């Protein structure tokens, strides 16, 4: 009757054991790292890149985790014992090269090799985001993704206000805001991120206060300037996952578009006029860009009047909120973003319509033979003098 010791010795003798250096070399060449410890051990720290297949479920779950039996496996446990037994079992299951990490996780840690602690939300965030955690498509993993997301808002006005508030509420970790304006009384009919208290203040300051009050988890990065070819690269430099375009003029729209294509950043586009709004997602490579639709801005003589066209106050609330929704879908990687789909909303009739948008192979920026290679600062003229 063999003892445990003898069983272990026999297992170790029949399998391949490697030390940490050899293991790292194997991993660099494409081996899969498998952690066979219990869930409570895994929860307290693991080697980065490992998949978790507790030894209790080894036989049933390994095929899912490692479908290719020719892929070498580096198996570890706490000390190198359970991993020896696991390697033996995997050899019996037909895996070509299952090796056991001698000394296991304990030695790995002791030698100062990289480990990672699991990220959890902590009790305060579990409370704040509880309604997100209850949704299977979000959950703790999704919420952590949102906290890691960086979203840049062009404009903190009609569209940017609701978008910024809902993105902040959702826990987007970093919100950039580009807006050179100050809060004006005419804004308060729709720009709900601002208030009577903040009249005369830069919109970036006003929005920052409002956002930080709503959710201190959010880091606000303010750019109190107009977007031009001179500053756009600097503004993009920190790195952004999504751009929410709530600009109020053509030159900015085109700068944002061209930058998004060159930097491979999706843009959630929204625009409004009186009772009608439009929203779509321009994702470089997947769908059209703004120039596929409108290769050039309209000529000055056909530009809209310089006075504001008037807009139902709540309309940017609807469109801006849809923009925030699309940005969240992109950040989470869920649902069907409005790529190649233009959603039109008519507030008066209460109707939504959808237009199919296609990439244009002749697009001057994202087409097969681009003719625009550098930022263009369109000069915006005002049709009609003396406003």
């Amino acid at each position, binding site marked *: 009757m063999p003892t445990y010791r003898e069983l272990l010795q026999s297992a170790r003798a029949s399998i391949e054991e490697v030390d940490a250096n050899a293991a790292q070399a194997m991993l660099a060449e494409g081996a899969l790292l498998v952690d066979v410890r219990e869930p409570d051990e895994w929860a307290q720290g693991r080697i980065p890149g490992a998949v978790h297949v507790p030894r209790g479920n080894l036989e049933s779950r390994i095929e899912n985790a490692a479908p290719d039996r020719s892929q070498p496996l580096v198996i570890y446990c706490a000390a190198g014992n359970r991993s020896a037994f696991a390697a033996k079992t995997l050899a019996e299951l037909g895996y070509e090269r299952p090796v056991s990490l001698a000394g296991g996780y304990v030695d790995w840690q002791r030698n100062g090799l990289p480990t990672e602690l699991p990220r959890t939300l902590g009790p305060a965030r579990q409370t704040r985001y509880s309604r997100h955690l209850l949704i299977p498509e979000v959950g703790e993993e999704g919420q952590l993704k949102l906290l890691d997301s960086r979203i840049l808002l062009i404009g903190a006005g009609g569209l940017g206000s609701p978008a910024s508030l809902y993105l902040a509420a959702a826990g987007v970790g970093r919100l950039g805001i580009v807006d050179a304006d100050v809060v004006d009384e005419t804004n308060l009919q729709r720009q709900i991120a601002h208030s009577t208290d903040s009249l005369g203040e830069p919109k970036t300051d006003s929005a920052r206060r409002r956002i930080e009050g709503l959710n201190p988890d959010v880091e606000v990065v303010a750019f109190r300037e107009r977007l031009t070819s001179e500053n756009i690269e600097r503004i993009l430099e920190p790195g952004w996952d999504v751009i929410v375009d709530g600009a*109020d003029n053509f030159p900015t729209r085109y700068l944002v578009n061209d930058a998004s294509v060159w930097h491979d950043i999706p843009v959630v586009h929204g625009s409004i006029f009186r009772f009608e709004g439009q929203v779509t997602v321009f994702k470089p490579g997947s769908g059209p860009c703004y120039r596929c639709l409108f290769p050039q801005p309209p000529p000055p003589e056909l530009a809209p009047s310089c006075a504001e*066209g008037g807009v139902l106050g709540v309309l940017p609330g609807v469109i801006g909120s849809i923009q925030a929704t699309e940005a969240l879908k992109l950040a989470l990687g869920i649902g069907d973003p409005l790529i190649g789909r233009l959603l039109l909303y008519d507030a008066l009739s209460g109707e939504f319509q959808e237009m199919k948008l296609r990439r244009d192979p002749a697009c001057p920026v994202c087409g097969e033979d681009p003719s625009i290679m550098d930022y263009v600062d369109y000069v915006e003229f005002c049709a009609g003098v003396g406003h």
Partner: protein
Amino acid sequence: MRELLDDLMSRFPALRGQLLEGDAELAPFVNVYVEGEDVRTRQGLDTPVGEGSQIVLLPAMAGGAMSRGQSLGRG
């Protein structure tokens, strides 16, 4: 589509400059959709239009504001 637009423009002459370039082709800064499809992906202005077709004329819209101090150049 051409006939439909001609009819529309005869009733609203100011539309002509907004929709056509050089009087014959669709201007590049406007898009026209029939049943949700861009006519440029179909037969352009020769795209057939039926009874009850949904047509959308979509000019480029950048949004409202161009108030004091913002214009980059004045004509």
